């Protein structure tokens, strides 16, 4: 008979989410629901009537970890609506900023997943904060990669966290020749560090994949070879950066997108019937607790061609580079493979950047109310912003953030796994939950209606 177990809150990712899992007698997940329990609402409404300069700043505040992606996607959605083409050197600065952010993010994710993994050749799980070798050297390398990512981002974007240099029509300032050289030196140092870091992480992930069993809170859990497999599709709009043109990027067509309500997708009210106090950290939810993912989930379910899709590093590699490894390990390896690609691309962009070139468009139209969209390939996936700007006022604004895409896909990927490994599967998506709340629902008649589930 099926039992219900709940892991709440999930850990080692941004924001608050939970896993509600219906499992069989062997503890294998029959149906898994991963949902956001962080209500954030009102950004779409708040944006209306603001200027196109204000909205990207608002968008960048929606999340603590993706401000750069949101800032860029919102800015470029505005530019798409008003039909403003920015100078090449402004675009190069944005590319550099975005890639620098991704390098920081991959390094951060390494720290988050290492505690699930083993030092190859041992039965020791990795504590990235230990002072002992060889982990200490690896941790220092990870920190240096984060520092490099943030420093390059600060130079290109004005600030390391909330970029102040981006503006509708381009960038406020180009960088100096000296700053270009500094970015170049840092990118080369980053590449030299990223290569061994990628190799090490892939070796550690392969070691994990080859295990018959893994330890979770003292429980010996059989590791399935199909951990995290799903049959949903992939969505990516660019190998590195993003797009705001259907001609340039035929893989994202707003007409193929729909969003359904969480109660159409998630399980209804149930009672927790399996409790495991040994599960890290602090045990699972108490027996008898009522759970109701339909009502607790704070996100809509976006569909592309009628199905949830996966976004993120594997999707980018699958769509643009023919990568075909499925499952959680394949997903984490894809992320590692982006490390060096990122630095190579960044070096190319820095090479192409002319510090004397103009970075603001000559003419910035006020907008005629046309629908404009822009996707930005954030570290954790496709971040799509949609807007209408008329007479320099925003009339409509919507954000489809990466983890919202992945909630339903990851939920499908949980099926068939031991429940104790559900968080390992979830972490493969490098979730960012706090901004992943989106309550604009396109109903059956394609009318846009605001649905607020939790009032």
């Amino acid at each position, binding site marked *: 008979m099926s039992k219900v177990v709940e892991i709440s*809150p999930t*850990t080692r990712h*941004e924001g608050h989410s939970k896993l509600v899992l219906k499992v069989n007698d062997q503890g294998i997940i029959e149906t898994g629901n991963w949902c956001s329990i962080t209500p954030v*609402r009102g950004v779409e409404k708040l944006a209306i009537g603001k200027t196109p300069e204000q909205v990207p700043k608002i968008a960048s505040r929606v999340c603590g*970890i993706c401000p750069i992606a949101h800032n860029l996607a919102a800015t470029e959605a505005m530019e798409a609506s008003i039909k403003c083409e920015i100078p090449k050197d402004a675009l190069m600065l944005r590319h550099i900023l975005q890639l620098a952010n991704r390098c920081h993010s991959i390094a951060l994710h390494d720290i988050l997943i290492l505690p699930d993994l083993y030092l190859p050749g041992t039965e020791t799980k990795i504590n990235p904060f230990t002072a002992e070798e060889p982990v200490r050297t690896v941790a220092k390398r990870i920190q240096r990669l984060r520092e490099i990512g943030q420093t390059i981002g600060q130079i290109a974007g004005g600030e390391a966290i*909330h970029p102040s240099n981006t503006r509708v029509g381009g960038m406020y300032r180009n960088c100096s020749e000296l700053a270009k050289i500094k970015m170049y030196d840092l990118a080369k140092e980053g590449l030299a560090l990223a290569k061994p870091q990628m190799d090490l992480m892939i070796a550690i992930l392969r070691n994990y994949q080859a295990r018959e069993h893994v330890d979770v809170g003292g429980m010996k859990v059989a590791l399935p070879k199909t951990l995290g497999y799903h049959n949903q599709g992939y969505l990516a709009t660019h190998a590195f950066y993003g797009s705001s043109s259907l001609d340039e990027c035929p893989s994202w067509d707003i007409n193929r997108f729909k969003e359904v309500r969480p109660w159409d997708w998630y399980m209804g009210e149930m009672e927790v019937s399996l409790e495991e106090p040994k599960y890290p*950290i602090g045990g699972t939810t108490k027996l008898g607790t009522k759970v109701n993912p339909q009502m607790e989930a704070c996100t809509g379910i976006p569909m592309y061609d009628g199905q949830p899709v996966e976004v993120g590093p594997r999707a980018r590699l699958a769509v643009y580079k023919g990568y075909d490894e499925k499952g959680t390990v394949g997903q984490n390896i894809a992320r590692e493979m982006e490390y060096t690609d990122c630095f190579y691309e960044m070096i190319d962009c820095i090479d192409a950047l002319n510090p004397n070139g103009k970075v603001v468009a000559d003419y910035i139209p006020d907008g005629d109310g046309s629908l404009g969209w822009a996707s930005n390939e954030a570290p954790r996936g496709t971040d799509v912003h949609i807007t209408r700007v008329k007479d320099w006022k925003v009339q409509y604004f919507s954000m489809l953030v990466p983890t919202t895409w992945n909630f339903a896909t990851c939920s499908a990927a949980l099926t068939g796994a031991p429940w104790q490994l559900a968080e390992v599967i979830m972490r493969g998506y490098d979730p960012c939950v706090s901004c992943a709340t989106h309550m604009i629902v396109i109903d059956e008649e394609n009318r846009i209606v605001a649905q607020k589930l939790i009032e």
Partner: protein
Amino acid sequence: MLYPEIVIAGCGNPLFADDGFGPAVVEELQKLSLPDNIGVVDAGLGGPHFIFTLLNPEETKRLIIIDIADFGAEPGSIAKFRIEDLPPGSYRDAHSWDLTEPLERIKDQIDITVIGCQPKRVTDPDMEIGISDEVSQAIPKTVRIVLDMIGVDYGTTRQCLQEERQRGTPETCGSTENR
């Protein structure tokens, strides 16, 4: 250097009314010319995973966090806190490494002070832009407190603070001012 000897981080989200206090103070501080060993950062919601987990104690000796805090005072009151004063979860890394406070890891090597302002209105989860008058009035005072802490005096900083302290209690840096 990304994070120098003294780091001043404004935390909070301007989309939730008074929660924008930290970034607003940082905006004011960024208008000033400060010594090179001081870095002022608009951390937004990203403090834990962009800054606190990246500070190198060999470089950074002092961290000043500016944020809102509910300590039961009148809105706009300001108080200084040490890490030990904070309830669990105050600065839990949003990426929650292992449910350990990221500041706990560095507090023995880096001198950490949190300057908290009592908010009047935090609208989370509903978004609203705009800081209340009471909290707005606390911004210049916080700037003066920070300048005093880092030893920068533009001629009026210490005198103003001295007057404020005489009117308020030392613990709340003059919390009565806004009553």
